[in-house]
């Protein structure tokens, strides 16, 4: 092609115009990046998806000094961990605050991603009666690394009509054996979480702890921690899962069940028992009012008859990024976000219960929940067994999921096999 001569070309303008447009666009995008509100810093809070509780308190806690905005993380706790950890590993300064699931707190703290909670803030948290379990889960190597925000636990939900039919006395503690038998004999299904995900390990951990054991001990040793899942308590846990999975009480979708699908099973005609988090109480208000009226609640079932159950512990702690440009402001903001008032507002909107006794005193909660249910929640959080605090929890959890899933394949050899596998994975000798 012949090159165009530049002699007397009358139209150099479009290029200049395009250049100006590009420069303008660049300048405006740079300006936008500086934050609009006349230099008022913006604190970005990465939250787990909820029904608006965290966004509401972000607004309440914004001050003349800073604005707190929220960014939503993926639904799945494992995916939340991945997204946060990868950005923090790259020292991303755009994360100021984040909602962290308790099992991953140790991993983040160990990697140096989290700013330490100052002493005065810690004193305040103790003053507002933050539950011991919540404080333990928020502590790594004797340092408080996240602000306990909400503390969740599971209780045993049941359909009153079903227990009447089956003739079970729910005023006394019940065992897993009892409820599986009752559902099996009466053509009903039990709702649990047994998909290949963190929720399944929550169930396994509660069963093991309920039998007086632990998944692992000496977590401080890191990859050399002692795996004790193969002990008797692990056997008891495996026996219950095997019994449920091979009985008629197992829902058809057992191997892919999560909190949501288990809730659907419970709400169906075959619903009988369900182990699930606190928000279930208002789950059916709009969608199935008949079911809502039929819900009863009791303490989490016992793994071994006569031995107190250890309900699962869940919740969210608010961490401040070590790499935040506004670390001090973020630490200040976090104190407001976990105040009893904020915990109460969040509980009112989302059904995720406060992490402190003062939080439970939030007046509107009494209107929303029966007094004995609030008591049950607090007693369950007190007795709850958190998953072991170790920076390698995701490996441990992933290894357990690999061996214990699907539930119908669980048998008496499963605990021992998983013990060996976890050890191999931790030492880097096996793929996960």
């Amino acid at each position, binding site marked *: 092609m012949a090159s165009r001569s530049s002699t007397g070309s009358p139209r150099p303008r479009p290029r200049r115009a395009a250049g100006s447009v590009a420069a303008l666009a660049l300048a405006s995008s740079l300006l936008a990046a500086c934050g609009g509100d006349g230099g008022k810093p913006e604190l970005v809070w990465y939250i787990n998806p909820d029904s608006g509780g965290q966004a509401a308190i972000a607004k309440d806690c914004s001050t003349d000094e800073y604005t707190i905005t929220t960014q939503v993380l993926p639904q799945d706790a494992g995916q939340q961990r*991945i997204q946060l950890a990868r950005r923090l590993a790259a020292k991303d300064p755009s994360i100021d605050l984040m909602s962290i699931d308790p099992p991953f707190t140790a991993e983040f703290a160990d990697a140096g991603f989290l700013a330490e909670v100052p002493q005065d803030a810690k004193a305040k948290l103790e003053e507002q009666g933050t539950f011991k379990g919540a404080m333990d889960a928020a502590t790594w190597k004797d340092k408080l690394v996240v602000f306990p925000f909400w503390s969740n636990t599971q209780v045993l939900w049941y359909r009153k009509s079903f227990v009447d039919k089956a003739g079970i006395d729910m005023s006394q503690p019940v065992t897993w054996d009892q409820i599986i038998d009752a559902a099996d004999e009466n053509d009903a299904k039990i709702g649990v979480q047994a998909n290949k995900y963190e929720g399944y390990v929550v169930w396994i951990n509660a069963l093991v702890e309920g039998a007086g054991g632990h998944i692992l001990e000496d977590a401080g040793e890191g990859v050399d921690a002692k795996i004790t899942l193969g002990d008797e308590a692990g056997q008891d846990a495996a026996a219950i899962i095997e019994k449920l999975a091979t009985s008629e009480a197992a829902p058809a979708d057992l191997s892919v069940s999560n909190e949501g699908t288990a809730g659907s099973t419970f709400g169906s005609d075959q619903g009988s028992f369900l182990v699930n988090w606190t928000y279930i109480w208002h789950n059916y208000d709009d969608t199935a009012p008949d079911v809502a009226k039929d819900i009863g609640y009791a303490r989490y079932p016992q793994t071994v008859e006569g031995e107190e159950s250890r309900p699962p512990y869940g919740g969210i702690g608010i961490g401040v990024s070590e790499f935040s440009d506004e670390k001090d402001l973020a630490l200040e903001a976090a104190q407001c976000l976990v105040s009893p008032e904020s915990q109460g507002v969040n509980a009112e909107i989302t059904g995720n219960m406060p992490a402190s006794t003062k939080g439970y005193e939030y007046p509107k909660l009494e209107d929303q929940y029966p007094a004995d249910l609030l008591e049950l929640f607090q007693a369950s959080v007190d007795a709850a067994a958190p998953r072991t605090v170790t920076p390698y929890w995701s490996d441990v959890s992933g290894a357990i999921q690999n061996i214990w899933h*699907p539930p119908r394949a669980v048998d008496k050899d499963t605990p021992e096999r998983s013990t060996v596998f976890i050890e191999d994975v931790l030492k880097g000798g096996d*793929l996960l």
Partner: protein
Amino acid sequence: MTATMAPEKDVTKAAKRAASDRAQAENRLGLKLVAPAVVLMLLVTAWPMIQALYLSLFRYRLTAPDDRAFVGIDNYLTILSDDQFWKSTLTTLLIMVVTVAVELVIGFAFAMVMHRIVFARGLMRTSILIPYGIITVVSAFAWQFAFSLNNGFVNSWFNWLPFIADDTNWFGDYPHAMFAIMVSEIWKTTPFMALLLLAGLAQVSEDMLEAAKVDGATWTQRLTKVILPNMRAAIMVAVLFRALDAYRIFDNIFVMTKGAEGTQSISFLTYRQVIEQMQLGLGSAMSVLLFLSVLLLAWLIVKLFRVDLAQARGEG
């Protein structure tokens, strides 16, 4: 270039030198013009590959940066002696062989339809190509919902079949889950296969077909003796492309089963090491092995079926 230079043989030496000077200048200009692209390519492809190769020799975890240590080829030995690696490889090969075979048959039928259709040609071609335009993740979710026990339609529509019941859990065991994954994969990529085959069909000369017809060849004879042999190169390229694609299957498995029930593919296993476990060392070693196995597969297919890429492009 050589072809265009050929007629200049007779011209004088001086002219020839001038031409070659000019050619050299053009070459230099050409190199300068492609240089930025080459540099960019090296930056975005070669550099990460070299880095992966380097990282694969370390024990290195993103969340435990202080624990980094050189381990030589230990990571490779760990992987190659691991059950899961071989099981995943087998699963991946199974998915590859079945989906490519089914896609080849259906894709060929679609290509024939697109080639021969007289009325509503554009509409028909577009509708056949729609699945290929859909993002794989979206298609995976669509099929997951379709097969879902709680809100899918597959169970209620097909419960008259002997092996499907109202409460069939499609993601509850290996055969069912693999079936669902393969259906999604086939649905999504058959149009691509059809498109490649259509290009091959278009190369088959109408004269040959007419000659065969005049000679009294039946439809089957025309298909097997004229059409297919003349499309061989196109078919092989289609198989090669799809086989390599299928071997790297990830999205469908990630969305539908998350690797449960033994449906983990080799890409998914790699993802778990690098992204989920943040084991950069072990994960990089897996990526290198994945890369090598794709390379090996490509070489095998090219050698085994004697694919001639130049011929497929119509240069042969």
